[in-house]
């Protein structure tokens, strides 16, 4: 392995391996700080509000929501798609960037994967509630009907969703856990409290770090990455099928699959930025999640934000180009109809706001990046709202044209789910190593600041180690 000295170091502070262990495990070994308790209590309170609204919905029925005959999907599905989208960045970082050998992923993949799992849990709540009778949720499984073998409808994209989301959740979970095993072994050997030691000992599966185990570990990670990459594409593709297989103008458009995937990565990176800016500050991990890491993520946000912008314009143009009056009406109505504010909020947050990060000084100002990352989250929420509500509220029959107004129950559920998400993330940050310690250590010899300094001299003065003899007969073909 050789790395060019002009690449920015991925680990700074001249750390030794033991220091890396201590730095990352500090929150697990020590008692939680006041700030942590403060954040945890707020999140848990918000979570309780959400759970209350959900309980109310389940006991009373979804008549407590603002849905009507025309707008049958609104906050519920908007939030579902929003949270599934958030989850995508985790798999992108852990799988796609692993395949593309982007070394900077090592310090953020653990937290991003955890975020994926929590986001998918949050997402699954919404279709569950929307069923109205969640205790009958097992009806989505291919089980024979009690009145005879009437099966589920495999032609329905909603059923594809069931398979896609459950596969995505379980595969992300085992991918994440497999990656955690070596670090859990480290935690087990580091903690002193006997109860903690016992728990981490069970969780670490008896990991000792033999060379053969590492070899298999790396191969398993690669294969899982190879599987997770098309999986992550398929999940948001299938979510987009929920809309695009229909004949509703504004929903049925062939670019939806890649456009949803790009949007998901965009929103996911927005959320990763939000979380990482706080995490590296609070847990004191700036030597591992460096400014270079933040810069790389900002660039991905610019790229995916532009892709989303391209998709918006493409849709708008093709709606006109189609020559179909219904297509044309839907898009004019989106931008200038009663929900114009949602459309322009989406456009401003998603397409315009990331573009200012082309300027380096803005990318390196963490306060501004934090604000932009929040705007991206808001914008992507509005994107789903625009797609769902504005396409539905103008029905084929003008007599059924209706507006949609969310109720306090829907607001409460939506906010409460953020509480669930942050509560889970805060617990994760206390109980498990937020950085993949083994993976970070494995790149330190080539990518840390110390290694860079050592190599620069030999690189600058040394001749290339190349055999000059040109030997055409030596080639194997």
């Amino acid at each position, binding site marked *: 392995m*050789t790395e060019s000295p002009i690449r920015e170091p991925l680990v700074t502070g001249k750390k030794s391996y033991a220091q890396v262990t201590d730095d990352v495990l500090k929150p697990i070994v020590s008692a939680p700080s006041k700030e942590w308790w403060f954040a945890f209590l707020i999140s848990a309170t918000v979570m309780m509000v959400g759970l209350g609204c959900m309980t109310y919905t389940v006991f009373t029925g979804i008549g407590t929501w603002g849905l009507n005959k025309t707008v049958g999907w609104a906050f519920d599905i908007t939030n579902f798609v929003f949270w599934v989208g958030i989850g995508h960045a985790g798999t992108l970082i852990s799988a796609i960037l692993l395949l593309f050998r982007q070394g900077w992923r090592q310090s953020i993949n653990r937290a991003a994967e955890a975020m994926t799992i929590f986001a998918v849990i949050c997402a699954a709540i919404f279709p569950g509630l929307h069923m109205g009778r969640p205790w009958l949720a097992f009806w989505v499984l291919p089980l024979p009907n009690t009145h005879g073998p009437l099966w589920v409808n495999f032609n329905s994209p909603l059923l594809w969703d069931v398979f896609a989301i459950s596969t995505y959740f379980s595969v992300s979970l085992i991918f994440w856990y497999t990656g955690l095993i070596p670090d859990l072994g480290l935690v087990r050997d580091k903690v002193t409290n006997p109860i903690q030691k016992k728990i981490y000992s069970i969780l670490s599966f008896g990991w000792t770090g033999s060379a053969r185990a590492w070899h298999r570990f790396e191969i398993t990670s690669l294969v899982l990455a190879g599987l997770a990459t098309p999986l992550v594409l398929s999940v948001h593709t299938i979510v987009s099928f929920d809309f695009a*297989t229909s*004949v509703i103008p504004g929903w049925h458009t062939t*670019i939806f699959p890649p456009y949803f995937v790009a949007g998901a990565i965009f929103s996911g990176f927005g959320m990763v930025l939000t979380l990482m800016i706080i995490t590296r500050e609070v847990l004191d991990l700036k030597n591992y999640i460096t400014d270079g890491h933040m810069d790389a993520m900002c660039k991905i946000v610019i790229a995916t934000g532009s892709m989303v912008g391209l998709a918006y314009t493409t849709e708008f143009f093709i709606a006109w180009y189609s*020559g179909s009056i219904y297509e044309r009406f839907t898009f004019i109505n989106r931008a200038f109809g009663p929900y114009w504010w949602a459309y322009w909020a989406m456009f401003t947050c998603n397409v315009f706001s990331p573009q200012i990060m*082309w300027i380096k000084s803005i990318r390196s100002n963490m306060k501004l990046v934090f604000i932009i990352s929040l705007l991206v989250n808001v914008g992507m929420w509005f994107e789903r709202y625009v797609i769902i509500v504005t396409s539905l509220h103008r029905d084929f029959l003008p007599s059924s044209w209706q507006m949609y107004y969310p109720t306090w129950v829907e607001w409460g559920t939506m906010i409460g789910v953020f509480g669930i998400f942050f509560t889970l993330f805060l617990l994760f940050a206390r109980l498990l190593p937020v950085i993949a310690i083994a993976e970070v250590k494995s790149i330190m010899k080539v990518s840390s600041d110390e290694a860079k300094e050592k190599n620069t001299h030999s690189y600058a003065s040394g001749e290339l180690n190349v055999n000059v003899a040109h030997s055409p007969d030596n080639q194997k073909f």
Partner: protein
Amino acid sequence: MGEQHHIEGNIQEKYSLDDQTKKYILGFIGGGLLLVIIGIVLAMVGGHDAGHGHGEHHGGLHTAVWLRQLFSNLLINTYFFAGIAILAVFFLAVKTVSNAGWYVVIKRVPEAISEYLPVGLILLGIVLLGGLFSHSLYLWSDEEALKADHHYHVIKEKLGYLNTGFFVGRMLLIFILWIVFQRMFMKHSIEQDNPATVMSSFNASFKTGAIFLFVFAITMSMAAWDWFMSIVPAWFSTMFGVYIFASSWVSFLAMATLIVLYLKRKGYMGYVNENHIHDLGKFVFAFSIFWTYIWFCEYLLIWYANIPEETFYFYNILHSPLYSTIFVGKFLINFILPFFVLMTRDAKRNMKTLAIVCSCVLFGHWLDLYIAVFPGTLTHEGIFGPMEIGMFLMFFGIFGYFVLNKLGQRNLVPEHHPYLEESLHHHVF
């Protein structure tokens, strides 16, 4: 191979076109030309006269069949290779922006491919203009035929976009932007051969790459709509730009891999080890899957919703014995073959296997363009014969000559590139 400290080959070597290769290229061009002439004669003798289709229910272009066939072939092949060249610029931009290091030892190959761009675009421009003014490619360009077409009521809504003046304007804009960025990348590349300017140019190339990617996203979609989607002017699909991009991208990857393998076979590039080959193989493998994903999603959504405004496009393809065979065939060549053959690590590292798969995939994506053009220009009179094969061989020869010639003009390795050392020591698990 674990840690490699010893690197084979000479990094100061230069490529030169040998006689054997020259003979092959001449053979391709000559043989291709012969087949094209045979094809034209056959089409003129056996084909229908001008004016066929007047007032008939299927509508379409009125120009003589042989002329439409000729222009369809010219469009496919001029775009196919120009598309490979612009995707070479895209490759350079992506690798620059993503800070990749492994590709440096093969960097000259995409650079040489991109040098074909000006030639390719001039040829493409001539074909587009010729097709436009002889009414042999675009139904919307022929008022008389258009009014007789049963989709006229839809197409007339789009004439604000689909008209000769605007079309030519957009074409020139796309050409100019593409050539300007190609020249900028070459300028960076030449500056990076000079130790005094290498770092400043290297840093500046990030900006060029980022801006190009932005421009490329828009121009590529526009090119796909204008040159291919508007062949069936009543039809529309928002995915189409992505689809043509995916097709050309895999063509480029296969072509670049083939050229690297050719150079290795000729005894050059000893420093390109099996890890680099593995990476190229992974690219072909992964983006073959990506292409299939785009292709399948577009088809599935149109098939599923079954709206007549869209479905007729695939209906016409699937109800023609020739087109449906090619439609299914390209799926087999572009997905099943690379997926199953290149799945294992060993296959991606085996140069012979990789060369065979890349050749097939290259042809498979040429078929993508066939399906994008022929069902629109020739409707039910579609044909696959000597002209199609001949034209491909001919352009392949021309492309090969230009690219290999450019490859010989500079050292095969950018000696002063800051990531060269990384690339020479490249090792993948």
